[in-house]
Structure formats: C-alpha cells, structure tokens
C-alpha cells in the first residue's frame, strides 16, 4: 500500500466520469459547452500523471489491487493497476497529448452536430488508453485494448453518413480484432501453459497445481505481469516462442504492421484531431507498448522470436515509406509515415537479442514512441489546420504556397516535419538514432542472426532517408511553390483560431526540444525506465550501452539531410516538379505500385474477403436447401406412410368383413400349424 493508491485510479477514473457526463447530459444540456468535462478531466488526469511520474521517479513504484474483476476455479483476474517507469511515461504522454488535442478540437469541431458525442468518445478514449497502460494483468490489458479499439471504431466512423467513413470504421475494427484473436490465444496459453516453481512470495499471482504425472507441487494459472514475467526464464523455449508470436499478432494488428496494416490509412476518414490522437500519437503505439511490456518474455524466447519482430518492423518501415513517397493526400502521407515509424519501434524491440541489449532496446523504442507522439500529433493537427482553412481539401495537388496564408501552421508544421525527418538536434533525430544504434549493436553480438541485423540496420538507414524525403516532399508541396487555393476555401482563407494554434505551438516546442531534454542532456528517460521498470524483471541497463555511437549518428544525419535536400531540389519550386512527372512516366509500374499501396487492399479483397463472402453465401444456400430440406423430408415420412395405408380405410363394409375373415383365417391357420408341429 503506497501513497499512490489514493489517486492512481483517478487517472482513468476522471475521464470516464467526463465521458459518462458528456454522453448523458451533452446533447440536451451542455451542447456548445460539451468540451468542458473532457478537457478538464484530461488536464486533471495529466496533473495526476505527473504526480505518478514524480512518485515513481522517487522510488514509489506500486502495484495496487482495487477489486476482483472475475475469479473462479484457478482463475483470478483482479482490477490491478500498476505504476512503474513505463506506465508513468506512457501516462504523461497520453494525457498531455490528449489534453492538447481536446483543446484543439474545440476549434476544429465547432458547429458539428455531433459535438457532444465527439467529446464523450474522446474522454472515453483517454480513459481506455490510460487504463491500458496502467493495467497489471493481461485480461485487464486486453479489456482496455478492446476499449481503445471501440473508441477508434466510433471515431473513424464519426461522420457515419459518409460511406467511406462507415466502411473504414468497420475495417479498422475487424482487422485489429483479427490480430486480437492471436492476442487472446496468447493469454490463454500463458494461463494454461506457464508453470512456476512453488514460491508464492516471488510469484504472487499463481494458484497451486500439481503435476499429474510426477505429483510435484507447482504454481500455475497466472495472468498478472509480475508472475508471468518473472517466470519467463522457467518456461520451455517452444512454449515461450509460441506465446510471444501470439502476443505479437495482437501488437501487429493494433500497431498496423505489415500483414494487418491496411486499416490505418483508411482510418484517416475520421476527423483530423482523431487521426492525431488515436491513429498517430497514442492508440497505435499500444502494440509497441505491449511488446515492450512483454520484453521479459521476448528476450527470454529463442532468438528467432526477436528476429521476427525486427524483420517485420523493418520491412513494414521500408514498405510504408515507399508508399508514402507517391501519395497525394497529405493525411495519407502522414498515415503511412506513422506505420513506418511504428515499424522502427518494432525494429528496436526486435534487436533485444541479449539481456544487455534488451534494456537498451526498450529505452530506444519507448523514447521514439514519446517523441513520435509529439511530432506526429503536431503534423496531423497541422494537416487538420490546413483542412480547416481550405474547406476540407487535403489533396496536395490542389494546394500550394500556403506559407503566407497559414503562417503559424506553416512554422509549426515545419518543426514537426524536421523532427520526423531526423534533422540533427531535433527530437526525432535523437530517438531514431538510438534505434539505429541498437540495430547496429545487434549486428555485432556474435550471435547466429547477427548478419541479418546488419542488413536490417542498412534498410533502417535507407528508410531514414526516404522518411526525410517524403516528409519534406509533402511539406514543400503544401507550403511552397505558387499559391494555389481550392475553390472550397472561399474568398477569405485564414489562419485557424487560437484554440487550434496554441496546441500547435506547444507541440512544436515539444517536437523541437523534447528529445534533447529527455535523453542526451539528462538521461531521464533511460534512468526512469531502467531503474523503475526493467530492473524489476531482471533486465539491467548498463551505462556503457547508452553511449552514443558517433558514426551511426553522423551517417543518419547525412542521410536525413540528403533526403531533405533532394526534396527541396525537386519540390521546392514549381519548375522542377515537371521532372518528377517525367520520372514517374519513365517507370510507370513502380510508380503505380507505390501509388496504389502495392495493391495490398485488392489482394486481400480477392484472396480473403471474397472467399469469406462466397463461403457465407454457400452456407446460407446449403442451410436453406440441403439441411432444412432433409428435415422437411423427414417430416414428410409419416404423411407418406399414411398415404400408403389410406386406401385400406376405404369405408366399404364388405372389404372390412373380407379383411377380417382373411386375418382370422391366417391367424387360425398359423395357430393350427403351430399346434400340429
């Protein structure tokens, strides 16, 4: 019992209260003021998160069990919240970015008929996301995990009268749920498969079981983090690998990694602040969080497990960057860059091939997660500001030279773009550099797959260049060149109101300095994660591992600046854009493939969706005409028998008399014959 117990539950509790209040009272009573409960609750949650962070940094990590959610037999799922380094950092990020985006939304969503509904769901989302990072057992995590998925569904389909939005909402829900099947099976496997030595002090969550063959008393049936992660080393390697890969399925779905990435670009149909909050800064990072949280499992698993994570992440990073090169929709460029950056985080986590590296990998991934939350939220809000001014037009071919029309948006967007591109000294630079550093180190361990990691490092470096290029391509196309305004903008296109620009400025400040302050100058991030989280599960962070690799740093700066320079040369002014067109016409198949997202949607529609639908239609017909007909056939049997027998009952007394006589004769004959024998 610590001092945290008193207010830890309030961090998710207040937004939940706000959500309920807005949902019930919003449409009738609050109306134009529906944003107040949400904003106040998320700001209060932000302050409380800071207090949690301070408490944790002062050595006050705590696991608080408030109640039992459900327990029967060997199962015991508690409402258990956990404050440690990882959850504290996530909490602060979520509530801070969440509050800023809620404030921004006041301007962006003004006048929308679903104003109250919007803020109710945003508050519900902040509740779910803070709950997700605070949960201390897998079932509670899964519950909040689905909760954020629900909010994503409701917000992507916020303008549900648009068919594209309705379809995107369903797609987002179904694709992530596909990953969640793996996730829940992973949890089942942890519950059933993992056994621990009988030591209730070390493994608080297990219940007593007996090995049926040997009669040895063990602990099993645990789903809480402490038990599962501390017992990771004791499990069979194959089992551990299976668990990790199943959990990875869930992470891949939520974080839109390769096979399940198709939902995220479509999710841009939601309002822009939603894209910023859910589909860039927080919810999509839940997959990264899950793998980071389960790092004790992943680092104890056989080496091919982290390798899978790394390959998947790097592949996705590269693939999404290639698609982002040619997209014309500003928000889609940003969506693919989100997928790509999440891929980077998975690369970092997948580089955890040794105990020492695992800790560094976790720090690198979470560091990038935090900085990315700032600059990607900023970029999406900037794009939203552009849409707001341009009458909801976001096609970059119809925009241009907006730097004079939207001066504040322009400067803040530039900050975000530079941070994403990895321009030296900005926040994205530091975190991306750590990721590349970990990947480099994983290539030098002398372990079986080290050469693969060298390739991954090279691919990661190349992707950094691509990232810089497509980010600045989008920036130059939107803000430079000749001034072009779409007719939808009206005659007085103007900068957004202050409720929208102030959050932009604050986030821009974060995008510029957060990276420098958090890690290279103070080492806050690594100290907090190392001392107040990793060490609990036996992963120590050595000082030497954190030293910056100057070579890697120089190389990545060079690549990033080259990307920016190339973008400037090609897109900085209108005259050279012709050249790009000609280049695209020289290689039409490559260009088309990238523009059409490598046809993944079409492939899925053909190979998965169509067969499923066909099977469903087949089942319907089979059920109606085969199964039910068989039943009806059985139903006709008595009728048929009756019809066969009916002629006998013909109502003729003579016939009945004849039948009686014949029957009597046969009976008597049989009797006589029987007696005679």
């Amino acid at each position, binding site marked *: 019992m610590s001092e945290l117990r008193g207010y830890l539950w309030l961090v998710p509790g207040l937004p939940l209260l706000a959500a309920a209040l807005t949902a019930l009272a919003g449409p009738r009573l609050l109306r134009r003021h529906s944003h107040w409960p949400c904003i106040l609750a998320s700001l209060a949650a932000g302050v409380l998160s800071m207090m949690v962070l301070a408490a944790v940094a002062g050595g006050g990590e705590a696991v608080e069990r408030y109640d039992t959610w459900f327990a*029967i037999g060997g199962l015991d799922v508690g409402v258990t919240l956990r404050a440690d380094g990882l959850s504290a950092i996530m909490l602060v990020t979520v509530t801070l970015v969440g509050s800023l985006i809620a404030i921004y939304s006041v301007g962006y969503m003004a006048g929308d008929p679903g104003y109250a509904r919007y803020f109710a769901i945003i508050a519900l989302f902040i509740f779910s996301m803070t709950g997700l990072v605070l949960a201390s057992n897998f079932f509670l995590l899964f519950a909040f995990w689905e909760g954020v998925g629900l909010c994503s569904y409701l917000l992507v389909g916020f303008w549900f009268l648009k068919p594209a939005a309705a379809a995107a909402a369903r797609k987002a829900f179904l694709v992530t749920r596909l990953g969640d099947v793996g996730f829940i099976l992973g949890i089942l496997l942890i519950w059933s498969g993992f056994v621990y030595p009988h030591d209730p002090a070390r493994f608080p969550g297990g219940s007593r079981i007996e090995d049926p063959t040997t009669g040895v008393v063990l602990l099993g049936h645990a789903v809480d983090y402490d038990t599962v992660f501390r017992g990771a080393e004791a499990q069979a390697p194959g089992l551990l690998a299976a668990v990790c890969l199943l959990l990875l399925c869930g992470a891949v779905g939520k974080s839109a990694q390769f096979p399940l990435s198709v939902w995220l670009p479509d999710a841009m149909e939601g309002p822009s602040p939603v894209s910023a909050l859910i589909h860039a800064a927080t919810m999509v990072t839940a997959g990264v969080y899950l793998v980071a949280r389960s790092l004790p499992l992943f680092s104890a698993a056989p080496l091919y497990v982290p390798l899978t994570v790394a390959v998947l992440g790097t592949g996705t990073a590269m693939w999404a960057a290639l698609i982002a090169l040619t997209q014309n929709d500003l928000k889609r460029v940003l969506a693919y860059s989100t997928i790509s950056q999440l891929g980077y985080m998975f690369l970092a986590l997948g580089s955890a091939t040794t105990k020492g590296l695992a800790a560094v990998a976790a720090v690198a991934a979470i560091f990038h997660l935090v900085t990315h939350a700032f600059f990607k939220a900023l970029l999406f809000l900037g794009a939203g500001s552009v849409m707001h001014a341009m009458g909801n037009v976001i096609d970059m071919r119809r925009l241009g030279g907006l730097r004079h029309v939207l001066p504040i948006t322009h400067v803040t967007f530039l900050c975000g773009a530079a941070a994403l591109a990895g321009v030296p000294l900005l926040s994205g630079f530091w975190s991306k550099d750590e990721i590349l550093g970990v990947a480099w180190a994983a290539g030098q361990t002398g372990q079986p797959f080290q050469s693969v990691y060298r390739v991954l490092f090279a691919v990661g470096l190349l992707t950094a260049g691509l990232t810089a290029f497509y980010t600045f391509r989008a920036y130059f196309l939107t803000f430079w060149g000749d001034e072009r305004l779409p007719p939808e903008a009206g005659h007085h296109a103007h900068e957004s109101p202050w409720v929208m620009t102030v959050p932009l400025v604050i986030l821009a400040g974060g995008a510029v300095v957060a990276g420098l302050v958090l890690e290279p100058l103070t080492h806050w991030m690594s100290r907090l994660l190392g001392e107040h989280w990793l060490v609990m599960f036996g992963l120590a962070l050595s000082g030497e591992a954190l030293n910056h690799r100057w070579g890697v740093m120089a190389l990545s700066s060079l690549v990033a600046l080259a990307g920016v320079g190339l973008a400037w040369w090609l897109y900085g002014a209108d005259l050279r854009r012709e050249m790009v067109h000609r280049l695209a016409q020289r290689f039409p198949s490559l260009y088309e493939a990238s523009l059409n997202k490598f046809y993944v949607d079409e492939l899925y529609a053909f190979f998965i969706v169509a067969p499923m639908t066909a099977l469903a239609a087949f089942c319907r017909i089979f059920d109606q005409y085969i199964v039910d007909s068989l039943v009806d056939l059985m139903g006709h049997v008595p009728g048929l028998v009756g019809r066969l027998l009916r002629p006998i009952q013909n109502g003729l007394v003579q016939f009945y008399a004849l039948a009686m006589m014949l029957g009597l004769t046969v009976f008597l004959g049989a009797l006589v014959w029987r007696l005679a024998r």
Partner: protein
Amino acid sequence: MRWLSFLVAATCLALSFVLAWRLVQVQETLPPHPSDARQLLKPTFRPVLVPGSTPEQPHATTWDLVPIGPGVVQFYIGLDGLNIWLVVLTGVLMLPAVLVSWRHITERVHEFFAWLLLLQTAMLGIFLAFDIVLFYVFFELSLVPLFFLIGIWGGPERRHAARKFFIYTLAGSVLTLLGVIAVVLACYERHGELTFSLPRLVEIVHSRLGLDSPEERAYWGNVQFWVFLALTAGFAVKVPLVPLHTWLPLAHVEAPTAGSVDLAGVLLKVGAYGFLRLCVPLAPDASLGLGLPLVTGLAAIGVLYGAYCAYSQDDIKKLVAYSSVSHLGVCMLGMFALNVVGVAGSLMQMVNHGLSTAGLFLLVGMLYERYHTRKISDFGGLAARLPLLGCFMVFICLSSVGLPGLNGFIGEALVLLGIFEHQWARGQFPWLAVIGASGMVLGAWYLMTMLQRVFFGPVREPTVAGHDGPSRDLSLREVATLAPVAILCVVIGVYPQPMLDAMRSEVQVIADIAQRARERMAAVPAVAERSFGPGEARAEGLQGGPGR
C-alpha cells in the same frame, strides 16, 4: 390486461432478485463443498429454499404429487447456483416482452398475454424443478404457449413455422422422456428405490458407479450410453446444435417480438441447462466419452457455420437467429470442457446470450414496427434518423461481439479459458479454443457489417404505406423496454463476481462429477474405448439426433 401482465412480470422480476439475494445468504450459512473431489462423498445437487422441506432434510421436499407412495413424484422445486441466474434472466426478460407487445399486439390481447404468462410459468418451472417428472412436464408445457404465440400472432408463414417448431422439438423431447424413464427404472432395478428426485437419482447413479464390479460397470455403461443419447436428442434440438437448428430461424422470423425474445432469451437455454442438469450428472461416463467429442465437435461446427450463415442473411431477424446458433455453440464448448472455469463460463454465456440476443430482437421488432420490413437492403443511415435506436443497437451489438466491459466478454473469456485448459492439459492442440476465438472475429464481422449497412452510410428509408410523417425515435416506453437489458449488460460486464460466487459450489459439483468420470475412464481404458469410441459414437449420435 396489459397492466396486469406488467404487474405480474414486475413482481416476478422483483421476486427473482429477492430469491437471488436469499440464495446468496443461504449459501453463506451452508457448509462449503469440499473442494477436493476425493473427499466429496455425495456428488449431487443441494437445492435450497425448497418449499415443503423439513428441518431434518432441508434439501428435499414432502409435497407429493402422485399418490403412489411417499417421495415418488413430488412437487419438488428449489434454487441452487445452476438455476438462480437463469430464473433471474427469465424474470428480467419478461418485462421487456410485455412492454414491447404494448402497442404491437392489437388482436386478441387478453389471450396473448395469457399465453405469454403461461410461457413464463413453464420456463420458470423448468429451471426450478428438481423432480425429473416435474421437469419434463414443464419442458413440454413450454411448447404449447409458444406454439400459439407463433401460430396466432406471427408473421405471414406463422402456421408452418409454429407446426415445424412444435413437431421438431416434440420429436426430440419424446426421446428425452424415454431417457428419463430409463434412468429411473435402472435405479429401481439395481438399487430397489423408486424415486424421481433428481438429487437422489444422481446420488444413486454415483453410488452404483462407484462399485467395483465388472458386471455393474458393464450394466451402467450400457444404461448411460442410451440415456445420454435419449436426453441429448431432446436437448440438442433445443440448444440447437448444428444439424438440428433449422426450426430456429423460421420460428424466430415468424414469431412476434415478445415470442422471439423469450424463445431466444430463455427457451434456448433450456437445452443447454438440460445438458448441465440431467445429462452430465446422470450419464457422466457417457458425457465424457461420447458427449465430449460429439457435442464439442458439433458446437465448434456450429460456431463457424452459424456465423457464416448469419453473414449472408438479408433479414435482420434471421441474422440474429443464426448468431444464436453461433453463440450457443460457444456456450456448449465451455460446458463440455467439463471443468470449473468452462462450466461457469457456459452458464455466464447462457445469461449473457439471453440478454444481448433479447436486446437485438427487441430492437429489430421496434424497427419492424416503424417500417414493416426487416430487410437489410431496404435500410441505410438510420442512425441519423433514429439516433437513440441506433445507439442502443450499436451498444447491444458490442455486447454481443464480446467487448470487454460488457457482459458478453466474461462468458466468452471463461469458456475459452476452460476449453483451452481442457485440451492443453491433455496434450492436444487446442483447436476448439482457436475456433471459439475465431468466432469472436466472425461475430464482429456479421454484426458490424449489418450495422454499417443499416445504420451508417447515406440515409435510405423504406416507404411505408399508410404511415403518417417520418418515423419517430424511441418513445419513453421503448427506452424503458431496453434500459433494463442495457443496464444489466454493463453491470455484468463490469462486476460479474457476485454471479460467479453464487454459482461456484454447484459448478464445482459438476466438475467433480466429471473428474470422477475421468478417473473411472483412466482406470479402465479398454472398456471405455470399446463402448464409446468416438467414431462409432458420432455415427450413433447423428442417427439418434434428427428425430423426425
């Protein structure tokens, strides 16, 4: 008349909650069941609050029904952990059933409510009965009111639907009667005691099974085999398990909304409840050896097949009907995991499915009242026109797909845990859990698609002849109809522990019964293999099943 039925339903609801509260109190005073199977001498039910019980025998009754000797056929009803929540569910669903019929039923109103209340009597009777004959009487009685409800107040094909429903389920339950009589006679022949009391029968069966003689073993192996088949025939139709489900969509589509609510919400649970109350305790070895592969196999097929059938329906009511097939498949998977977690999950799933499916049927009924059609292709963007109805629909759909925090998740999670544990502990690949989990995605697939087509996208309303003005959103009466269901969905999802606590000891009894059967099977594997080999079992089961 409406007000009278409303009052009766409300009283019933209040009473059921009082009973639940009393049961929890009584359970606290009872000595707990020993948790270790080996210490438990009499693995049987101990109903409490039995009317007509004496202080010496608190779990039995003295109210005789048929004067052919003391304690033969008795009016023996009681409560325990297995039936209490189903009784509450019946009470909860009666109120919406009455309210939704308020305006909808305009012809022969008195009769309608009379049948509806008789249906409730029958359903409560089934759940409460501890006398096997009484159980059967109520079991058959439940068919009659529903037959008339469908046949008189149903849709255009009501006669066909009513007849098919009646004959199909009757054919199954006639075999059930055979099974019931067989158990009683077998106990009479071997033990010399003629009794129809369920707890006593279970006790006798287990005392005979515990005897260590090959002759006794062979005799009971045979009895159990046939008893199991006979009981299964009736209950599998009711659940319904997959090849025997085709009466269900028809009956649902034609039934009036109140009939659908009670049919899906409560009556389908009778099948599952029968498996739990009669099949497993009276034929434990057969349930394990033959029922496990047969029932879980059919249930797994049902999970997938029902979902696929649901997806391609154009009638929303049919979609919901097929979703019941899928969800009850999950329920049966959990039950035949035959361990504590799985059985508890199965019971939770029964209640949860009752709530969410009843909610869906209520909503579909309200749509139908407004537009006189249920075709998905007729609708579009209704959430803009009927925001409150759309809200409730999204909410109930989410509960049905098992979103954590709402009721559906608790049942599904427990079932999956139970069935996974069952297969994992025996070194099998947990494919049943994989199928159960994929049911979660498929459930989301058809329900979300329905939502998208009906409630989202551009507004498309069917034109209704003789309708004045645009359709109105939910009235206060309709909100009052849906509110109890919706509130319970949240309450069960967030705080299911009281429900689990109340059912704990009886679920333990079922698990103990199964554990004893496992030990017997392990002791004589050869016999077990011979009498209930899976291949032979499946063929037999399919023959015994469809009936006529």
